[in-house]
């Protein structure tokens, strides 16, 4: 059942060697083909209509008034001046929400508009609809809000003892994981304190949406929601409408590495449309985007690793504190991932991990790719480096002595049943040749830290190599009902997939086309646009759609196939299983009998709908134990960095990635997803941190928030993709995007550690943490 990648699809999709020799018989369609995205050309040319390009007759423009304070009591809100402005059609505040006043994905703790109390910088206070965007913005400025400033709670460690910021209290969740013997000790003990910064999803397209009121009193929202059905239900409750009176139509998603266009954005928009009876459009400014959406949880981690003299782990003790910001959002889920993966993909006989998610007045935290797992990876890998240093063992070798494999236990007591080729991944990156030093190239061609023609000086540059192993879970965890529904229709040789799985850039719609091509042998497959009149497919997070929605599409396609082949099988007197579809032809197993698909279809229209529901999970119990996860994905990365040790500037030279992907469904798309994940991880490692001062976001713009540019993105070498099919996953494929995000920052930190000899216990790595003496 093990199917090594080296024998199947090329493991180096974009290796230079591939340029010389043509790739061996790459299929043009179906699974395993590098089918391009259907809308790639329109997106590249700028003709693809995103929500911000939409327009409707009689359109009004919305603007949202946001709090300039992190923590304040609202004494009064006077909207009369704004309402009196010519062109202003509606001004709404907390009192104008007809339905439930609060919402939330897991706990309904977040008000639509701040009601009496502001809990974070940028919290919405009022919204305006006007006939011109400038009028709307000026009207928000004319709303008089009297604040009584309160001391913000910005240090999560102080949140425990601070006055409750919310009626629900400041502790959102506490998981005390206990696994094994608390008295176990190792011969070698290393400790560390680690801090992870606040990464922003920083989507290329800021949030935008259009709300159109319906004659039946309902409303339609055109926006880039990534979880349309949940958003619809939350929005409908706040509108005081039944869910079927609200429809969310998903437009193109301009970049999503977390949740997009959350209800906090959609609800004011819908309320304004309902209030005015006119279509209303809202496009967020870059500043609003930074203030409004959820960020990665800033995290404080304390670790103590015990090992024996051989470097085998005995016990891990950890404390993990997530700064959830003012509202719960999905922090409970992030905490579960952080606690469960606190030891990483290593065998640990005894583990004691305490995790907390607490409320503060800092910007809101929520789901960003690899949430929870990324923060702990940076810490446990730093501990592994420390242990290697203490024992005088090579860091890769120390990791190799501890790697997890199938059949081992996670600290949650769950047995790893899926393929876990961690040792193979680590060996692949370790054995891959190191990039050459640029000593043979002319000095002016060197790309030193600091950039071309920059301040870098070869004599002060040190090269470092570091390793990291990471893991993530796929699909919702802890008892989430994971289900997706898909419909496949075939008419005149053209198939259509109807599934409300949002393609966030993950490539799901391309995969859906490939799945149908593979199953039905149809060349032309379209994926219908998503709206909430279709059955739900769930959130586009945790690589769900490849698995759950892909599984549903495959089942529906198989049902159509059976409908198509049944009469023929009857005619031929054989089971449908003995008929094959390929290149538009239906052939019997022995090749004797054959006909064309077109002839067999004969104008018939075939429909089938199917669901996929992976096996259920259970919540972690009061000691952090339970089978909480459906599937796991693993990755090993070797980072090579150049550090100018006088200036502390870092350039990542190369990231060698080996990843456990289950099965390659689309080689080009897979490589792109891994490259994107590594680049996002490099950003988290070096530059991406949304800084705050006393709860106020300091630079909510793309100048202050430095994303990696093309010069910062390293050479990414995909050295091995291990294809060991996960038997419980449809097609055996694992989601590929999140695990490189989780692993890359830890690998970069390990490499900077190796180059400078500094501890590097904070992400992003500040220049002052990467300077070393030249001696």
């Amino acid at each position, binding site marked *: 059942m093990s199917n090594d990648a080296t024998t199947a699809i090329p493991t180096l999709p974009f290796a230079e060697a591939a340029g010389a020799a043509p790739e061996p018989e790459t299929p043009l369609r179906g699974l395993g083909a590098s089918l391009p995205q259907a809308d790639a050309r329109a997106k590249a040319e700028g003709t693809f209509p995103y929500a911000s390009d939409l327009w409707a007759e009689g359109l009004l423009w919305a603007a949202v008034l946001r709090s300039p304070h992190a923590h304040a009591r609202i004494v009064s809100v006077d909207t009369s001046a704004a309402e009196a402005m010519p062109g202003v059609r509606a001004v709404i505040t907390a009192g104008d929400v007809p339905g439930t006043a609060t919402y939330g994905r897991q706990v309904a703790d977040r008000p639509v508009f701040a009601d009496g109390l502001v809990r974070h910088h940028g919290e919405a206070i009022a919204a305006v609809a006007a006939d011109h965007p400038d009028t709307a913005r000026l009207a928000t400025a004319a709303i008089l809000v009297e604040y009584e400033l309160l001391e913000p709670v910005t240090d999560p460690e102080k949140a425990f003892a601070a006055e409750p910021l919310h009626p629900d209290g400041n502790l959102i969740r506490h998981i005390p994981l206990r696994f094994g013997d608390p008295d176990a000790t190792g011969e070698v003990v290393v400790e560390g304190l680690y801090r992870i910064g606040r990464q922003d999803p920083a989507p290329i397209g800021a949030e935008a949406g259009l709300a159109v009121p319906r004659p039946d009193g309902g409303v339609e929202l055109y926006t880039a929601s990534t979880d349309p059905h949940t958003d619809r239900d939350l929005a409908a409750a706040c509108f005081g409408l039944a869910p079927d009176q609200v429809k969310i139509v998903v437009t193109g998603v301009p970049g999503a590495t977390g949740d997009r266009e959350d209800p906090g954005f959609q609800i004011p928009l819908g309320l304004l449309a309902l209030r005015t009876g006119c279509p209303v459009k809202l496009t967020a400014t870059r500043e609003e985007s930074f203030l409004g959406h959820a960020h990665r949880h800033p995290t404080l981690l304390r670790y103590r690793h015990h090992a024996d003299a051989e470097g085998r782990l005995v016990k891990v003790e950890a404390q993990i504190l997530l700064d959830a910001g003012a509202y719960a959002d999905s922090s409970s889920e992030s905490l579960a991932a952080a606690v469960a993966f606190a030891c990483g993909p290593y065998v640990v006989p005894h583990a004691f991990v305490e995790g907390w998610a607490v409320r503060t007045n800092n910007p809101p935290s929520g789901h960003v790719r690899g949430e929870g797992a990324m923060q702990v990876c940076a810490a446990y890998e730093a501990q592994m480096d420390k242990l290697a240093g203490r024992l005088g063992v090579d860091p890769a070798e120390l990791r190799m002595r501890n790697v997890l494999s199938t059949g081992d236990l996670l600290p949650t007591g769950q047995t790893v049943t899926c393929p876990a080729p961690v040792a193979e991944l680590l060996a692949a990156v370790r054995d891959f040749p190191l990039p050459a030093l640029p000593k043979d190239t002319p000095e002016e061609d060197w790309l030193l830290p600091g950039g071309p023609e920059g301040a870098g000086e070869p004599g002060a540059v040190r090269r470092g190599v570091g390793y990291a192993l990471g893991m993530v879970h796929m699909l919702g965890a802890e008892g989430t009902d994971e289900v997706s529904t898909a419909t496949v229709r075939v008419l005149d040789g053209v198939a259509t997939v109807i599934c409300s799985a949002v393609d966030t850039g993950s490539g799901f719609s391309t995969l859906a086309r490939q799945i149908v091509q593979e199953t039905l042998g149809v060349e032309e497959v379209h994926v219908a646009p998503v709206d909430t009149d279709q059955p739900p497919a769930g959130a586009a997070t945790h690589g769900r759609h490849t698995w759950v929605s892909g599984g549903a599409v495959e089942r529906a396609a198989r049902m159509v196939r059976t409908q198509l082949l049944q009469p023929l099988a009857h005619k031929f007197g054989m089971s449908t299983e003995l008929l094959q579809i390929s290149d538009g032809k239906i052939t019997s197993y022995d090749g004797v009998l054959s006909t064309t698909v077109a002839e067999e279809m004969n104008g018939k229209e075939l429909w089938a709908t199917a669901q996929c529901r992976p096996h259920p999970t259970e919540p972690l119990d009061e000691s952090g134990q339970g089978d909480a996860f459906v599937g796991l994905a693993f990755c090993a990365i070797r980072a090579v960095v150049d550090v100018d040790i006088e200036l502390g500037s870092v350039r990542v030279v190369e990231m060698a990635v080996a990843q456990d992907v289950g099965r390659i469904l689309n080689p080009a798309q897979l490589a792109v997803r891994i490259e994107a994940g590594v680049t996002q991880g490099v950003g988290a490692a070096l530059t991406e941190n949304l800084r705050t001062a006393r709860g106020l976001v300091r630079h909510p713009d793309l100048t202050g928030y430095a994303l990696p*540019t093309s010069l910062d993105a390293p050479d990414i070498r995909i050295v091995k993709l291990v294809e060991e099919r996960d038997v419980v996953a449809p097609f055996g494929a694992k989601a590929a995007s999140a695990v490189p995000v989780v692993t890359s920052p830890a690998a970069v930190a390990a490499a900077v550690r190796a180059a400078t000899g500094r501890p590097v216990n904070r992400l992003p790595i500040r220049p002052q943490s990467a300077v070393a003496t030249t001696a």
Partner: protein
Amino acid sequence: MTLPASLDEAVAALTAMPAAVPVAGGTDLMAAVNRGQLRPAGLVGLGRINEIRGWQYQDGHALLGAGLTHARMGRPDFAALIPALAAASRAAGPPQIRNAGTLGGNVVTAAPTGDSLPVLAALEADLVVVGPLGTREIPVSHLLAGRDLLAAGELVAFVRVPLLHAPQVFLKATGRTGPARATASVAVVLDPARRGVRCAVGAVAPMPLRPLEAERWIASLVDWDNDRGLAPEALTAFGEYVAAACVPDPPGDEQLPPAVLHLRRTVATLARRALGRALS
């Protein structure tokens, strides 16, 4: 929005409508407009004034048009004239910004991180300002320090820069490898005719700083008539001298916070490297 074709017309347009704002590349102005921080009553576009889009020679100086773009100044022919200004222009941002942003705009915006500013300060450049009352010249540092402000209807037309025919270096430290704002920058220019070394440090203060004592001290060590090289210890001492002058110790026994200490170390390193490259 008016689009005058000459400096005289531009001055006339600004005089006629004092609330109007002159705009050249718009890389700073339009960002402020988009952010809602600025809503100019009118704009006077300077993009069609050909006389300020090039440069000319004038008794040992170059008279640089304020409308010169960073992209133009980054080219090799310009780099042969004023190497440090060319280097600063090439570092001034991504190609889109460099294609639009201008020398005059960089001076008038006077952002602490403006990359051309330390170079102009080190070169002791003068600004040629045209206005309704005629033309006047002011040192660039006077404008940046707020000692001499532009009056209503006045425009920076040219920047007069001495041609020193000697090595010049501009170095900047940023947070990433790709284009970014400077956390600190240093310009070092040699003036062999006057046997001087001039240095300016950008981004650490609201305007470029000149460590004059450090300049005089290091200039006295250089052997101007022969090989100008200095011992590494002298370069290091120069760097530390510059850094101590530009990132001073707080009064009393207070310690500098770690981030400021790192800034000082960065300035010292940049100044040492810049001088080393200029003298090598």
